[in-house]
């Protein structure tokens, strides 16, 4: 049973995909995880180990083969169907930006607000202020195809933040960003999440990014994924960029890297 302060709870969650040719792909073996309210947890693991699958199961996009997923006491999957109540206050940011080409940037960002019935004036106002939050001022009316990959990801982040979700599921959100912009976005993400007390599950390939952002880091084994290690990051949030240069920070990054290399060997 998840603890009382738990926001997202995974209990013995496993996922086996059946391919068209009838082969079984064991993507997730057995994951137990509790993410507390307002906690920032990163999932770290090699490519193809099932990180996206885990986020999709939490978001109610992929039913687990077995096990249970709970969001604030409400099961995400009920009799194989996604629960609208459990997933209501989640926002998922996909590995690809997934902006719709028939909307411009502000319309894309305003889309979830529109789907909640917010009127045009107020949702576009919010979208514009989100644009400036993620550094896209001046591109409000641009078409997604005219933006760089990194800019599109930032627009997708703005869209995910728009509804003020209680839980954010981020699938490698900053993979296409340069190191400088990535730092900026991480600072911004940290600020927004702390200000609103958002619970975050972040998938990343960057150990440094995971250490910088997270309260805890979950290291996953190669497919089928299972939790091999959970690291608690001792630094107080919010964290300044300079923290990344400190010895303690570097040491933790090094330790996690060594563990992962050892596990892979």
């Amino acid at each position, binding site marked *: 049973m998840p603890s009382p302060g738990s926001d997202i709870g995974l209990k013995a969650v496993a996922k086996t995909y059946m391919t068209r040719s009838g082969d079984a792909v064991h993507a997730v073996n057995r994951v137990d995880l509790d993410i507390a309210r307002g906690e920032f947890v990163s999932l770290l693991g090699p490519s193809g180990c099932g990180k996206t699958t885990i986020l999709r199961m939490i*978001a109610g996009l992929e039913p687990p083969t077995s096990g249970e997923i709970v969001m604030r006491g409400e099961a995400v999957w009920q009799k194989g169907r996604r629960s609208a109540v459990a997933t209501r206050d989640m*926002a998922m940011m*996909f590995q690809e930006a997934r902006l719709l*080409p028939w909307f411009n940037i502000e319309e894309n960002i305003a*889309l*979830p607000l*529109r*789907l909640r019935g917010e009127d045009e004036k107020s949702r576009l106002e919010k979208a514009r202020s989100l644009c400036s939050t993620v550094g896209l001022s001046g591109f409000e009316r641009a078409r997604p195809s005219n933006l760089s990959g990194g800019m599109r990801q930032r627009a997708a982040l703005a869209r995910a933040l728009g509804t003020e979700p209680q839980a954010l599921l981020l699938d490698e959100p900053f993979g296409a960003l340069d190191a400088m912009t990535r730092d900026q976005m991480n600072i911004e993400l940290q600020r927004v999440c702390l200000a609103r007390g958002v619970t975050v599950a972040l998938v990343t390939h960057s150990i440094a990014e995971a250490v910088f952002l997270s309260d805890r880091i979950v290291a996953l084994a190669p497919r089928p994924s299972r939790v091999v290690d959970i690291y608690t990051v001792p630094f107080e949030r919010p964290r300044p960029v300079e923290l990344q240069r400190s010895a303690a920070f570097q040491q933790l990054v090094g330790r996690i890297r060594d563990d992962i290399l050892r596990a892979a060997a």
Partner: protein
Amino acid sequence: MSERTDRLLRVLLPVVTVVAFFAVWTVYVDSAKVSAFILPPPLEIGYAFVRLVGDGGVWKHVLVTVEEAVAGFAIAVALGLVFGTLLAKLRLAEMALKPFIVALQLVPKIALVPLFILWFGFGIESKVVISAALAFFPIFANALIGFKSVDRGDRDLFISMQAKPLATFWLLDLPSALPVILTGAEVGIVLAIIGAIVGEFMGGNVGLGYLAVAKLQDLKVADLFAVILLLTLIGLTLYSLVAGLRRWLTPWHQAVDTII
């Protein structure tokens, strides 16, 4: 090649082709002594065309043919969209109706024209029905394909944003499918015009199809060619309107323009 000369040639070369075509035609009928009853020289057709459009009588024929084609096309769009949506959304409807509709498509519809005239008379109605029958399938088929090929990931995005089915339809399905549907409509409008003309060939006393037959019976071959030219221009206009509509409604879609 520089971009300027490229653009220039793009305009110039087709003109050269057309001029060459008519030149060969003129030289051929002249040197081979082809009877003007079989193939009149282009210049004569040109005069006949000027006479035809200069004479106010032709416009009632134009109007009727355009009316039939546009009405038939509109019906085809409405039915194509309704059935395309229905079959894309309801698995049972697809299973029950798709084989039937595809089989209907295999019936040579031109062969049904006498039947439609029997049922709907010699007036405009039978031509509208023929026109709609011909234009329906490409619009229906493209609507079905368009709605069924909405990106899975985009669908997941909408699910994750808790979108209601109706909102998903308007904001995701329709814009996703629109480029494909309108490409079907481009084919549809051309078939609608053919339907109207074939209908007029068979019966009635008005419309450009009727006029073509009348000119043939009078052995006015140059006039017949002039009618064909006029029909071509009408076809081009209607097609351009639909193609323009596609480009205007779906500017994000980088399609290669269709060639009918």
